[in-house]
């Protein structure tokens, strides 16, 4: 499971990095989204992977049997902040497109 998840994180990262190196703002926003998936999964993974052990307390359960709740709460915060920043990036990208007329990340097409 660890191997699969880390591979998945790697592929998400690679795709994301590839995209944020592209010249179009839309590529960048998709890239950033992919990267935030990767990072969220990464944070989630550092607590160790446990199947069917959600940190929902039941009476008399051994606390070591639960998945680590801290990375989960960190991921929740990260998801919210990621959502907010994606929205912001979208709007800035639109504003830039509106003002410059292009969707190039530098606000102008590269001279040939």
């Amino acid at each position, binding site marked *: 499971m660890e191997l699969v998840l880390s591979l998945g994180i790697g592929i998400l990262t690679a795709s994301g990095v590839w995209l944020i190196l592209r010249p179009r*703002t839309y590529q960048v926003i998709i890239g950033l989204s992919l990267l935030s998936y990767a990072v969220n999964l990464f944070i989630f993974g550092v607590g160790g992977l446990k199947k069917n052990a959600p940190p929902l307390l039941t009476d008399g359960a051994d606390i070591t049997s639960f998945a680590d709740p801290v990375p989960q709460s960190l991921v929740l915060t990260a998801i919210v902040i990621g959502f907010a*920043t994606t929205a912001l990036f979208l709007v800035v990208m639109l504003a830039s497109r509106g003002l410059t007329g292009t969707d190039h990340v530098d606000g102008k097409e590269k001279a040939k």
Partner: protein
Amino acid sequence: MSGFSHHLIVAPILIPFAAAAIMLFIEERNRTAKALISLASTVLLLTVAMFLMRSAHGMDSPNGEAGGVYLLGNWPAPFGIVLVLDRLSALMVLLTATLAIPALGFSLARWHNAGAHFHSLFQLLLMGLNGAFLTGDLFNLFVFFEVMLAASYGLLMHGSGQQRVKAGLHYLVINLASALLFLIGVSLVYGTSGTLNMADLALRLADLPVERRILLESGLALLGIVFLIKAGIWPLNFWLPNAYSAASAPVAGIFAILSKLGIYIILRLSMLVLGNDTLPMASMARDVLLYAGLATVVFGAIGVLASQALGRLAGYSVLVSSGTLLAVIGFGGATASSGALFYLVSSTLTMGAFFLLIELVERGQDAGASMLAVTMEVYGDVDEDEADDEIGVTMPATMAVLSVCFSACAILLSGLPPLSGFVAKFTILSGVIGANAPTATSAAWITATLIILSGLCALIAMTRTGMRTFWASIEGTVPRVLVIEVAPVLILLTMTLALTAGAGPVMRYMDDTITMLSDPRNYINAVFEARRIAEGAIKP
């Protein structure tokens, strides 16, 4: 700090937060009310910050009573989030408030009308900054970093316009990428050390098995990159001159402290985590700071020389000051570090004043003038047949005041006496190659040379620009400047003068700060000895 005043530690975060929240209930067009709330909040912030600084300075042995540690939610360290008030954080909070008032005052003349929610964003920026300065928790630092950044995005693009939005887009992408790095770094720290509390982390570092220690170092390295990006280290700083020069004047003014946030965290973490040399990476990290800092100084100085527009010149000056600070932190040594703290304060005030001033100065210039002046200087030898009329031209009062302010900024930036820039640089240099330097190594020579040369570059660039602005183009229109716009500049510059005059006591504070920081045990003990409020009354 005891009793209710203990709660004041959280006040620098809550005051601007509450002000911003209340302003959401006020109609956008009722700017006067918003301005009043904003101003009141900032003044209150300054008062609290001064109180906090006094208390922090009074806490001679923080391990005695842990008076500066605030347990949020009454959860003990390292489990809950703690705020830590020590000399350094108190200094930064005070500096923020000190810079905020002039910037805010400046905005009241016209800028706060240039877009929606200026005051809310401004207050939230202060909240983010104060939170980042005070927190003792790594993830909480991330959160406040994001608060600060989010507000800075809004403020940077306040007033809209092509330049701002273009710069804003770059700024945003870089910071989004660095936020992701931050998250990776923090989670690596948690995954390897099992804690998020900085003091706890420093404590746990000592006995980590090798496979965890390596990953932890990777995490710390990534965190370092994030803060270095914020601080503007070369080659991760190309966004900075664009962003700072595109921002409206009051925003750029308050942004002067933003790059210092990165420096602050680097300083804090390097003292805490690298302080006891438990990590093999410690010396390498110091070298990286030193040489990358110097590279930043060089790049910044080159940029200062190469800048046509004042805004970019100022942006590159920010880089120079960041580079200087980083290099000195990497260099180490008590005197140089104290000098660096002094320099941090001085350069923040300077940059704040300079950014505000730039707008006033440029208001009088027509767009193409600066371009033309430089090209003339380069290609044509200046017209020598000019009438040698030996009668002076009287500058209008506004121009006179502006030119005095400009000269002060030039003096401060180039580190010339008598203003605080000189005191700062001299103290640093004295700790690097002067009477307070242990031995003069080659690193010391390089550092000193570059610091001095960067001052020279600033002098050359500022002279060129200043002469072109104030001496060569008197015929240009005299800018219409309001008192409320020039007063903030004067206030900030007066503070640098005060900083020079009071250099002794101020430097004593800095010395104490560095002494405190250089032994991480002080900080760790304070955090762990903070006690919860007695249970029973409120908890079930």
